[in-house]
């Protein structure tokens, strides 16, 4: 067997292990270890790597952000911030048709801004909003579906643990990825609100009414969300203001939410121990998957499978859009079975090389050259430029031909093909990351194994799972429509990057 064959054969073995309920991290570790031993003819290389690889994986500076964000998210659940957010949103929206459900979505979006985990967002907002929804006569399945969908905003709106992992796997800038996630995150919240207003019109009996409250009280409630804004502003502002790194931002956020929880009396000893336990379990789970994936991907890279696959896809001349659509569809289907983090760690090292060699034509060399040239010329013709040169440049811009090296030198700009390609590669990586993030999150609310559905449904004994399933399909539809929009218009995702960088 050649190394390449061993690499290819490792996929079915890995899949079988995973479907036999062997933990995903362990499966990848075992297959990676076995494969490495086979490829390198002995245990020497594999055991040698293990000497330092566990420690270096667990002590990687960019990964230290993960336990800090997890602790931050858990402290956030203790500080009464979820209640404040929900009360504020309810004041403004609650009296509308389906308004309490809309308020729950709004509060989830706000909570997502300080919590990087969907499960924590769903669980926390569920505790706060579910009793209220019931009280105002909202149907059981509709309420649970709303909260499960709202929970996914926890990870769509930065900070987001999944995005951190994606950034590390693809060597992209975490801050830029967070920035790119904002507009899609807000679109998600808006989409869910639209779904609610359609749903309550289709099934008027599924929502009750709630009297409006006075404006003074609404603003009083709004003022009470200041801790959320403070922490969010500090973390996000600090990262983009260049005051600190994303990891430091996570530390500031964890300290901030912990402090607020402590001030509100939510952080007593049992709660602190409980926070440690929850953080410990999720951290250990995530890092074991990261370790296994690192080992497996190291083995795969040695067999050159990702490279061969990328070459194969290119040589077949598939349309990039077709490939992208297939990958996203794959995530949607597998998301029904597997959790988002495992799926990203398992598949990104294979799919990303394929995507990054595809040409989506997001940028055009000629347009960028023309823009840069116009920018220079608008400030007046550069000194010493001959009339002939100027005419030739104007002609090139008008006819849409590439500028020559000579012309660019005269203008004092440097827009070469290499530079445009570099920027394009980064844009594609970020755009693809956001798309993947959305489709794997859809997996949290699709039957049969949507974790968010389970969490919320477990809180509400009276609602049957099947009712939740039925109602949640409306939200899944809105997710799919959003993915299609974002695929068709990449610049929706990239807009903040274009403005800020």
């Amino acid at each position, binding site marked *: 067997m050649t190394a390449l064959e061993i690499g290819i054969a490792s996929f079915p073995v890995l899949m079988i292990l*995973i479907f036999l*309920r062997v933990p995903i991290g362990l499966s990848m570790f075992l297959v990676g270890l076995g494969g490495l031993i086979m490829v390198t003819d002995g245990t020497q290389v594999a055991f040698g790597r293990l000497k330092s690889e566990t*420690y270096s994986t*667990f002590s990687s500076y960019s990964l230290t952000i993960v336990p800090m964000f997890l602790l931050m998210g858990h402290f956030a659940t203790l500080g009464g911030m979820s209640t404040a957010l929900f009360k504020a949103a309810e004041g403004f929206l609650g009296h509308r048709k389906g308004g309490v459900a809309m308020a729950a979505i709004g509060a989830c979006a706000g909570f997502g801004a300080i919590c990087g985990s969907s499960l924590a967002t769903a669980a926390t907002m569920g505790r706060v909003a579910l009793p209220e929804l019931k009280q105002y006569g909202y149907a059981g399945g509709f309420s649970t579906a709303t909260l499960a969908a709202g929970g996914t905003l926890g990870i769509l709106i930065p900070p987001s643990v999944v995005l951190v992992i994606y950034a590390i796997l693809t060597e992209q800038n975490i801050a830029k990825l967070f920035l790119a996630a904002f507009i899609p995150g807000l679109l998600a919240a808006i989409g869910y609100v639209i779904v609610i207003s359609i749903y309550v019109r289709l099934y008027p009996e599924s929502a009750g009414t709630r009297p409006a409250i006075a404006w003074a009280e609404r603003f009083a409630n709004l003022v009470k969300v200041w801790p959320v804004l403070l922490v969010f502003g500090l973390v996000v502002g600090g990262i983009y203001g260049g005051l600190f790194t994303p990891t*430091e931002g996570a530390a500031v956020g964890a*300290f901030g939410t912990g402090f607020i929880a402590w001030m509100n009396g939510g952080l007593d000893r049992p709660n602190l121990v409980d926070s440690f*336990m929850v953080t410990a379990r999720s*951290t250990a789970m995530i890092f074991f998957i990261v370790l296994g994936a690192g080992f497996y991907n190291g083995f795969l890279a040695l067999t050159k499978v990702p490279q061969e696959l990328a070459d194969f896809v290119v040589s077949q001349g598939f349309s990039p859009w077709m490939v992208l659509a297939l990958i996203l569809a794959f995530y949607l289907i597998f998301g029904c079975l597997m959790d988002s*983090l*495992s799926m990203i760690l398992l598949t990104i090292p294979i799919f990303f090389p394929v995507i990054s060699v595809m040409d989506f034509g997001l940028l055009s060399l000629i347009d960028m050259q023309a823009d840069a040239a116009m920018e220079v010329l608008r400030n007046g013709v550069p000194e010493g430029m001959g009339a002939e040169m100027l005419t030739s440049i104007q002609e090139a811009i008008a006819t849409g031909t590439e500028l020559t090296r000579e012309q660019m030198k005269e203008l004092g700009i440097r827009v070469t093909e290499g530079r445009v390609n570099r920027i394009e590669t980064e844009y594609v990586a970020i755009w693809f990351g956001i798309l993947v993030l959305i489709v794997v999150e859809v997996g949290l609310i699709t039957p049969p194994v949507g974790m968010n559905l389970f969490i919320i449904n477990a809180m509400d004994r009276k609602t049957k799972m099947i009712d939740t399933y039925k109602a949640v399909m409306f939200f899944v539809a809105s997710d799919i429509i959003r993915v299609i929009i974002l695929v068709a218009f990449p610049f929706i995702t990239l807009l903040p990057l274009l403005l800020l960088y």
Partner: protein
Amino acid sequence: MHKLMMGLARSMAILGGMVLSLLIFLTCLSIIGRLLNGAFHSDVMQSIAPGFSNWMVTWVGPINGDFELVEAGVAFAIFAFLPLCQISAGHAAVDVVANAFPRGVNRFLRMITELLFAAVLVLIAWRLAAGTISKFGNGETSFLLEFQIWWALGASLFGAVVAAIVGVYMGAVRTIEFFTGRIQVWDGVEGEQ
């Protein structure tokens, strides 16, 4: 026995959590120091109170090598978190297919899985010990703080050894469960069987 192991795992998790919290404090202090240092270096402060500012910048600043401590500390914390994840079956797995298997098959699979997991954790601890010894031997130090790297590896090794012990214990528990057919440690997964 289970109480002891659970207590061990929980204590390790609390220890790891405390180290993580300390690192969070440390990072925040370092940021404040860095920002204040920048402020005292600014033109405004230098013109208002040059003497005071110059005295302040001598001792107010970022904590030297804070990220080295964060890296070493977080590595320890994660190793310390492993035992709890192990004993409470916290690892992510796909159970759609396995749910359809008969109970006996599932118990068998569970035994094999836990035994493999135990073997992997022992392997990790053993290799980490070898790594620690080689760092001890060559006396490598960290870049800025110049602390001995093997201290950091040794601390992590402690967590890895506890994880291996708990892993072996869980492997034994699942083996006994398979052969006697009596569940000893409930963790919610058996509920649906």
